């Protein structure tokens, strides 16, 4: 994941570096004339100031070309158009008119701005294990998202992750709509030795999930994970059904699942789900398909919620906790 964006971004940093360097040569301010009657040490410091700490002002013109390049790289890597606009805007704001001391390397300045932009967009991380440890049990987690993004697989992976980290879990088969969905989650659970509460196909999903929570309370289970049927954010009745489920379950965390390969629509639906039922954290699946990773940036920027996990394959172990700094280090290169 992020391989494509990474190599592009690193090239662009160099371009930025060159443009600003070039600007430095042309626009270096003339040395101020020495003021007579000052102490010699001031003169020394003035020279030092001239040679090492003289400040340069970066103009928009200097960075237009690399910014255009950065924009292309972001778009090609599936960062949604609006989000790419925001990142470019941030870069501009941070570089144009900034005073750069001549002693600092241009690369550091650019890397700093880019790192700042990406970290701002990716937001804070989220440690699910710490969360569960700190919380009253059972911790109730509701999974939401559009059709086919990998909700059921992800919920099973999360259950497995919590289980190997020492927590007891129960699954609620809340997709009572899609043909074969109950069998799918039940079979996964059977293979992993995890309890699943299920009703009939076509039954009320809120009822199954309610029963799952009751089961967890009665059996001192640490974590409840409730699956739901995929639904599109523009279907009013399905979204209000989800809202009803949320009201019945009273989840501690609503985890919204989308896939790394989604393009610009990732932003639209993430926003609608967040507005209509609320999202606390995001799981981004199918990261193994896509070395680009733009959707992570798009979604995080749009709803400002942390990304919890990446899904990286169809196996139960293909789940990786998401850490923004690690990703940004990878993209921009380690700081310093």
């Amino acid at each position: 994941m992020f391989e494509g964006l990474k190599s592009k971004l690193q090239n662009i940093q160099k371009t930025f570096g060159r443009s600003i360097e070039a600007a430095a040569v042309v626009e270096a301010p003339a040395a101020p004339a020495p003021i007579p009657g000052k102490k010699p040490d001031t003169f020394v410091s003035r020279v030092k100031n001239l040679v090492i700490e003289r400040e340069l002002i970066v103009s928009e013109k200097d960075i237009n070309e690399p910014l255009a390049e950065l924009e292309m790289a972001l778009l090609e890597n599936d960062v949604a158009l609006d989000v790419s606009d925001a990142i470019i805007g941030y870069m501009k704001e941070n570089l144009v008119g900034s005073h750069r001391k001549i002693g600092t390397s241009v690369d550091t300045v650019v890397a700093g701005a880019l790192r700042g932009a990406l970290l701002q967009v990716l937001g804070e991380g989220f440690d699910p294990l710490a969360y569960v440890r700190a919380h009253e049990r059972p911790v109730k987690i509701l999974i939401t998202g559009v059709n086919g993004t990998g909700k059921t697989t992800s919920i099973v992976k999360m259950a497995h992750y919590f289980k190997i980290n020492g927590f007891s879990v129960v699954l609620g088969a809340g997709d009572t709509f899609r043909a074969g969905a109950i069998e799918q989650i039940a079979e996964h659970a059977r293979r992993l030795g995890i309890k699943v509460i299920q009703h009939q196909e076509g039954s009320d999903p809120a009822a199954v999930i309610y029963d799952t929570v009751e089961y967890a309370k009665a059996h001192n289970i640490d974590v409840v994970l409730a699956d739901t049927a995929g639904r599109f954010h523009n279907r009013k009745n399905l979204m209000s059904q989800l809202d009803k489920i949320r009201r019945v379950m009273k989840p501690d965390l609503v985890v919204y699942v989308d896939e790394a390969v989604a393009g610009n629509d990732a932003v639209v639906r993430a926003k609608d789900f967040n507005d209509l039922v609320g999202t606390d954290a995001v799981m981004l699946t199918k990261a193994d398909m896509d070395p680009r990773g733009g959707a992570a940036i798009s979604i995080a920027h749009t709803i400002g919620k942390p990304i919890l996990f990446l899904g990286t394959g169809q196996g139960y172990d293909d789940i990786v906790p998401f850490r923004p700094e690690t990703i940004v280090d990878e993209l921009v290169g380690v700081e310093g």
Partner: protein
Amino acid sequence: MLDSLSSSLKDALKKIAGKTVVDRAAVEELVRSLQRALLQADVNVRLVMHLSQSIKKRALEEEPPKGMNVREHVLRIVYQELVGLMGNAGKTDLSRQTILMAGLQGSGKTTTTAKLARYFQRKGLKVGVICADTFRPGAYRQLATLCAKINVPIFGDPAEKDALLIVRDGIKRFAETEIVIIDTQGRHALEDELIKEIVDINEIAAPDHRWLVIDAALGQQAAEQARRFNEAIGIDGVLITKMDGTAKGGGALSAVSETKSGIVFIGDGETIDDLERFDPDSFISRLLGMGDLKALTERAEEAMADEEMDVNAMMRGKFTLRDMYRQLEAVNKMGPLKQVMSMLPLGGMQIPEDAYDVTSTKMDRYKVIMNSMTSAELDDPQIISGSRVHRISRGAGASPEDVRELLKYHRVMQRALKGMRGSKFSMQRMMKRFGKSQ
């Protein structure tokens, strides 16, 4: 977001409309807003750059054909280039055939398999379905449940792990069946073993079609994925799923371009009947956003509230002559028709310029003609045959040409309104979006 996008397209178009010669700055502005619309629809970044270069070049270098103004000339080029991007519509016919379904995990292969079974069954053909997904738990149950609803036989075995075995036996089992559809497990470009599996299935089944199922939301990955599938089995058609959401399906165009094939069907819902043949015009209007539908519908609603015109029904394509009559009556309140229609950024380009030229005398004549139609004719203009045309023209004291012109005008309007539709839920969606953006 979408709103501002289409309005920048609209503004760019307006600027061109005022010119007498093709103006570089105006063309560049148009191309820029077009680029943004296409990028936001997930059309491949390189395809977009290529397309905009070629639109710019043609708009500036080609002479406008005689009798065509600058705006029409530029729009025609934009339209032609966009249609070129769509490829040819994917081929399908009703002959005996085997279809192999391929695609990424969760793209909608199984659901679309059942929809296709339904489609061919409706055409009176015998259909059989093979479940070659031996990986995903519940995959057999999913397909079996869907097929049971429509009484289509399914071959498969949830306990068997070897997909090749199932395909071999399934092909034998359905030797006498006219249409055989093979559903497979999901896979992606980097999964060499799974790619090999579908290569082997392709060899055993020797299908007539190998269709790639693409989720409408798929982004820039589409090109890379399609290239790998095409290399592996030779894709000859693309199916887009989940067009009932808000995604624009631009990724599918990358797939079309990589595979040199075309889009065959569009899936736009979770039920078995939600399958449509591909229509480039409505696809394009969706790609570019629906334009200033808000202003249009608001003004339309305002003007027509008392006329009880059902704007929603019109958007669904139920635009009868009766509606048109009311519309003509309301036109004064709404402003000139041309202005109303041009609020749709490029929906307008499918409409011949003279369609707008409804002068008030013409409008009056149309009303007189419609007054001599029967109720049934007003509700369903399709039934107006040659003899009816003559009867109406005599009744209205007009020529048969006038009646035919009116009918043509109605068809144009109906098409235009339908083009705005894009998908079943777009109206609600647009309303919601507009509601929010206020």
